[in-house]
C-alpha cells in the first residue's frame, strides 16, 4: 500500500482529466453534484480520473443533447489517454463517485450525472467495480490510479454548499481545433 507521505498529489478540477502510470501518484478531487469516473487497466498499471458536471438532462439516447456530448467527450478523452499509455479497452475497470443531491441545487442534476456515467460505462462494456454516488453530502475523493485504491471523505454541510456553488460557475469550454488550413 502506498503511504500518503510518499505520494505525489495531483488535484483535478471540473472539466479536467488525468492519466497516470506512476504508483506514487494519488489523484484527488472534490465533488458536489459532479461525478468523477476513475478508470484503470490493472494489467498495464495505468489509470486515470475525470471530473464532470452535465447541466440538465444527460442520459445517452434520450435526445443526445450538447450536455451529453460534453460528458461523452470527457469520458472519451480519459479512455483515449489510457489506451495511449498501454491500456486495453477490454481490461478497463471503473469506479464512479459523486453526484450528491444537495439542497442548494433543488434538482437531481447529481443523480442524472451518476446515471449518465453508469449508462455510458455499461454501453461501452467497461466493468464497474465500485461506486459511491448520490446522498446529501459532497465528497473529497482520492484515487491511486495504478493500484485502483480509492478513498473518500464526506464533506460537511457548509463545505458541500461551497463546493456546489463553485461547481455551478461556468466552466471554460474546451479549445477547438486550431486550424488555418483552407479545406475549400
Amino acid at each position: 500500500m502506498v503511504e500518503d507521505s510518499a505520494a505525489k498529489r495531483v488535484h483535478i478540477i471540473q472539466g479536467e482529466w488525468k492519466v497516470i502510470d506512476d504508483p506514487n501518484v494519488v489523484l484527488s478531487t472534490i465533488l458536489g453534484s459532479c461525478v468523477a469516473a476513475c478508470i484503470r487497466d490493472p494489467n498495464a498499471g495505468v489509470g486515470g480520473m475525470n471530473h464532470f458536471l452535465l447541466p440538465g438532462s444527460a442520459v445517452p439516447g434520450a435526445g443526445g443533447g450538447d450536455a451529453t456530448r460534453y460528458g461523452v467527450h470527457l469520458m472519451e478523452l480519459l479512455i483515449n489517454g489510457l489506451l495511449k499509455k498501454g491500456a486495453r479497452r477490454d481490461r478497463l475497470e471503473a469506479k464512479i463517485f459523486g453526484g450528491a443531491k444537495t439542497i442548494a441545487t433543488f434538482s437531481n442534476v447529481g443523480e442524472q450525472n451518476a446515471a449518465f456515467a453508469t449508462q455510458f460505462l455499461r454501453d461501452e462494456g467497461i466493468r464497474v467495480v465500485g461506486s459511491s454516488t448520490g446522498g446529501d453530502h459532497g465528497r473529497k475523493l482520492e484515487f491511486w490510479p495504478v493500484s485502483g485504491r480509492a478513498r473518500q471523505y464526506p464533506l460537511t454541510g457548509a463545505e458541500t454548499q461551497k463546493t456546489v456553488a463553485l461547481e455551478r460557475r461556468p466552466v471554460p469550454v474546451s479549445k477547438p481545433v486550431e486550424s488555418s488550413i483552407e479545406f475549400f
Partner: protein
Amino acid sequence: MSIAEKIKVLIVDDQVTSRLLLSDALTQLGFKQITAAGDGVQGMKVMEQQPHHLVISDFNMPNMDGLGLLQAVRTNPNTKKAAFIILTAQGDRALVQKAAQLGANNVLAKPFTIEKMKAAIEAVFGALK
C-alpha cells in the same frame, strides 16, 4: 426528397455512445441512410461492399485510425470520391494538417453541437434542405 435523405452516410467510431450520439444528430438533420462501423478496418469493409457518399470518422481508434481509413478510402478507385469528415477529441494542429494533406474535406472538434455538424456537412454538400 431532401438532399440529406439521398446521402448515404457511414459513421466510424470505436465508442458505442459516440456512434449513438452521431447517428442521433444525423437523424435530426434529416439523414435516413446511416451505417455505423467500430473502427477503420470495419469501416473500409463497409465502403468496399457498398460505397457511401459521406464518411464521418473519429480519429483515435484501434486497428485502423481515422487517418488510416481516409488513406484507404482515397486510394480505392471505388471509394475515393466519398466526402470525408474527421472528428477529433484533441485539438491537434498536426492532425488537421495531415488530414488536409490526405484529402479530408473537413475536420470537426468534439464535443460538437448539431449546428457545427450541420455546418461541416453543408460546407461539403451545400445546404441540406
